């Protein structure tokens, strides 16, 4: 028994993965991971010293007893069929889902305050998240971190599809990094180039993880689970025959973040084994293989913690020149779409289409739909068909909406037959809102958040279940339990529906018209009744008046 002082063991890793696609586009994914050395089981413990973990978020976590926090801001929609699967998917707009500790007594109160605090930290309108757009999923969104009990009463999920992302969201996000935007990979995050892309997403994921210390001999080690914050930016840029870091981000890399234990750049060269598709310079001998999203990929690695990566000029500017026209990309195994059908402003139909492109394997997917209350779903018209036959889901959870209190929540576990298209349709009626509930621009339409499709997709290649810290960050985000499948989440498009909108200028028009009618009609009537008429003698011109004067003197009758 004894007391020892353990050195603070916060850790920071950063990496950038660049995936060139055949169409000449680039997918760049930045991931920054900070491990916070604290005992998450002892919540309520007062922490007074923050090293690498940002203090603003640490205080939020302890004040609201948050076990896991996932927030993302996205501009654009990820086109799975053209671009493949992203490493960490996110829906358009803002998405926030939080797991609270079991000890929280008032989850809704904590949730409301948490959204307000986060809206201040990230300069976003997250305070619009309230009970009318929050749901409590019963089977989706299991925790991504450690934990035994998964009581869904402590989970809350909300999306704001209308939320925009711009520099004011990037500025506080960059301030969460230990090096800020001054050193390391974050110097490439310049807003002018970053937002000039087809897809941009920035996310913060906080969850408790295992800490594994290899080869360190402490006197007494408590291998306690600690918090890990994972910040990632995905962006998707169009480029042409030649691209370089300078062209994409208007910066080159000059040094790694001094506080980082590892700082790497990975370039996906799987489709270019002999160098016939593109040419990458500067050449690097380091190669690494990783199994990610069910596929084994090869990467060229640039290690920024080693001085020789930067060469003579002390700066790293990756250059890639396309040589040949590549073939087709592998079709992703799971894909989903959603659209609104129907006409008019009274009723409509939501269609969700899920594609299983695997040639012979069937697998289950969990579809979660959260529809706002003003689209009143007729759940008796819900149909699920695969290959023109009814497909009965093995699990349905439906929570009906309450006007102005709660949205609809529909969760279904559907088995997708191999090589098939499954269609889920449900009819709805559009509600008439009160006139104060309309937004200032109601003719734009109202957004319905994306559906979430979670699935365990069979993998072509054996996935590694060894969850050590030596793996690159992008391949170790989601914990893998089985070798034969990997977990993937696909988001559909958000919907834009028009609700019956009144003409807001009508009160003004009515007042004008009514007052005019009253003034003209009643006024004339009143005048007729109350006005008296007198005969008014017209005044004579000057000449006649003088003539009359002379006539008066003469005593002769006057002129009229």
């Amino acid at each position, binding site marked *: 028994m004894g*007391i*020892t*002082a353990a050195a*603070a063991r916060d850790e920071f890793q950063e990496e950038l993965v660049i995936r060139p696609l055949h169409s000449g586009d680039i997918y760049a994914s930045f991931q920054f991971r900070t491990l916070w050395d*604290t005992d998450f089981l002892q919540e309520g413990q007062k922490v007074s*010293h923050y090293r690498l973990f940002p203090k603003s978020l640490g205080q939020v976590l302890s004040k609201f007893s948050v076990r896991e926090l996932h927030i993302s801001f996205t*501009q654009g929609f990820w086109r799975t069929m053209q671009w493949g699967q992203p490493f960490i998917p996110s829906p358009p707009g803002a998405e926030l889902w939080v797991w609270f500790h079991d000890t929280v007594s008032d989850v809704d109160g904590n949730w409301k305050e948490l959204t*307000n*605090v986060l*809206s*201040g*930290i990230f*300069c976003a*309108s997250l*305070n*619009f998240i309230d009970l009318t757009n929050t749901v409590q999923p*019963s*089977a989706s969104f*299991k*925790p*991504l*971190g*450690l934990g*035994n009990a*998964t*009581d869904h009463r402590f989970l809350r999920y909300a999306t704001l599809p209308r939320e*925009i992302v*711009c*520099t*004011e969201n990037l*500025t*506080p996000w960059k301030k969460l990094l230990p090096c800020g935007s001054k050193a390391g990979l974050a110097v490439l995050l*310049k*807003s*002018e180039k*970053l*937002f*000039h892309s087809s897809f941009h997403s920035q996310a913060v994921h906080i969850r408790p993880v*295992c800490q594994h210390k290899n080869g360190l001999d402490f*006197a*007494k080690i*408590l*291998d306690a*689970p600690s918090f890990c914050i994972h910040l990632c930016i995905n962006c998707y840029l169009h480029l042409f025959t030649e691209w370089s870091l300078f062209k994409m981000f208007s910066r080159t890399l000059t040094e790694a973040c001094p506080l980082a234990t590892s700082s790497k750049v990975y370039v996906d060269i799987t489709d270019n084994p002999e160098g016939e598709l593109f040419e990458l310079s500067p050449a690097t001998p380091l190669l690494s293989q990783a199994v990610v999203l069910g596929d084994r990929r090869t990467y060229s690695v640039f290690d920024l913690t080693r001085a020789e990566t930067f060469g003579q000029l002390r700066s790293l500017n990756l250059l890639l020149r396309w040589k040949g026209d590549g073939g087709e990309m592998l079709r992703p195994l799971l894909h989903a779409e959603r659209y609104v059908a129907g006409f008019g402003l009274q009723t409509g139909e939501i269609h969700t289409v899920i594609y299983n492109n695997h040639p012979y394997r069937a697998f*289950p997917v*969990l579809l979660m739909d959260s529809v706002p209350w003003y689209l009143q779903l007729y759940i008796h018209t819900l149909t699920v068909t695969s290959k023109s036959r009814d497909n009965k889901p*093995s*699990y349905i*959870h439906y929570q009906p909406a309450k006007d102005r209190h709660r949205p609809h929540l529909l969760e279904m*576990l559907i088995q997708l037959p191999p090589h098939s298209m499954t269609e889920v349709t449900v009819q709805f009626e559009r509600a008439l809102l009160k006139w104060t509930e309309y*937004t*200032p*621009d109601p003719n734009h339409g109202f957004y319905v958040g994306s559906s979430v499709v*979670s699935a*365990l997709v069979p993998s072509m290649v054996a996935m590694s*279940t060894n*969850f050590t810290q030596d793996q690159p960050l992008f391949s170790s985000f*989601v*914990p893998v*339990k089985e070798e034969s499948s990997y977990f993937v989440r696909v988001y559909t498009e958000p919907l834009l529906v028009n609700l019956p909108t009144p003409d807001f200028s009508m009160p003004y028009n009515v007042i004008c018209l009514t007052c005019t009618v009253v003034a003209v009609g009643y006024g004339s009537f009143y005048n007729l009744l109350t006005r008296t008429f007198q005969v008014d003698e017209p005044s004579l011109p000057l000449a006649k008046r003088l003539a009359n004067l002379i006539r008066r003197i003469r005593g002769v009758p006057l002129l009229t």
Partner: protein
Amino acid sequence: MNYCNLITIFAFINLLVSIPHGYSNYVETKAGQFFSSGHTNNWAVLVCTSRFWFNYRHVANTLSVYRSVKRLGIPDSHIVLMLADDMACNYRNPKPATVFSHKNMELNVYGDDVEVDYRGYEVTVENFLRVLTGRLPPSTPRSKRLLSDDRSNILIYLTGHGGNGFLKFQDSEEISNMELADAFEQMWQKRRYNELLFIIDTCQGASMYERFYSPNLMALASSQVGEDSLSHQPDLGIGVHLMDKYTFYLLEFLEEVHPASQANMNDLFKVCPQSQCVSTPGHRTDLFQRDPGSVLITDFFGSVRKVEITKDTINLTSPVEPPIKRSGSSDIQIESLTYVDQLPVAEIIHQQDCLEANVTRCRRKQQRTRKLNCQVVEKQTA
């Protein structure tokens, strides 16, 4: 002769004595001037009330003032910036993440380090008045509050579409000059400001300050009642007008000001005369106690910095002790934590059966231990 010499010597000695005295007087007057306005901190509330792409110029107006105010020293924590629509990342913007104020895209007033506190649908009359009077719900974060006290100088800048006695917010509601005057009176009674400078750039802007009745208010407007404020120049690349004339010349004037500048309010009143602005800018100083000629621009646009000069060395305290981990098997429960299955199909189907059979003991069956364990243990060394 002797008498003359004596007088000269006496005068010389007097001069010698009075020079350091005069110098200290000079320092004191300088220090006195520094604190003569009586304020100890500065705040700014900058509001753009217009929505839609064709009102780009109003957002550019607000961001120009934001940029100047930040440059002259007011930090983001003391600025409440309200933008009713997003122009920088709007899909119609040919250059995303930029808002320009000059044609030919010379000056990007959006910049790389901007924090917008209220954006989009949050910019409403109610939120604006709540910010001014301080009556916000308890869970509002600090960055959205105006935490001023009775020694604060506040700059309030409004821009958008207005008329005689009102300012339109987002095409759906309006604030009247009486409401604004009452809000300022509430601020005065709650001692929420020391001095307040109110600038408005809308059509018929002077009508908005006609009804003020609280002390220590100075107001500027871009046009008189009955006149329209005009926009400055369109940009053919972006396709909209980039700025309003009054704020354009105001920005030009403020770009010359630096934190130590001695420019005063009389110079500000001369910004944009009718020959340049077409409308006649107006101002109101009758409620203000000090003479405008003695009020520095930096009293409102800049920030007071509390600087203490010390010549002693200061010893920093010893570094914070790292967290001390207690060890002892009696204190710690050995609990095996695992990563949860992301899509436990069997469990979910079982949940369905539970719901149908209404059995409450189902929940305990949901836990499973898998290969990946993370054990909270204590390792003893030899």
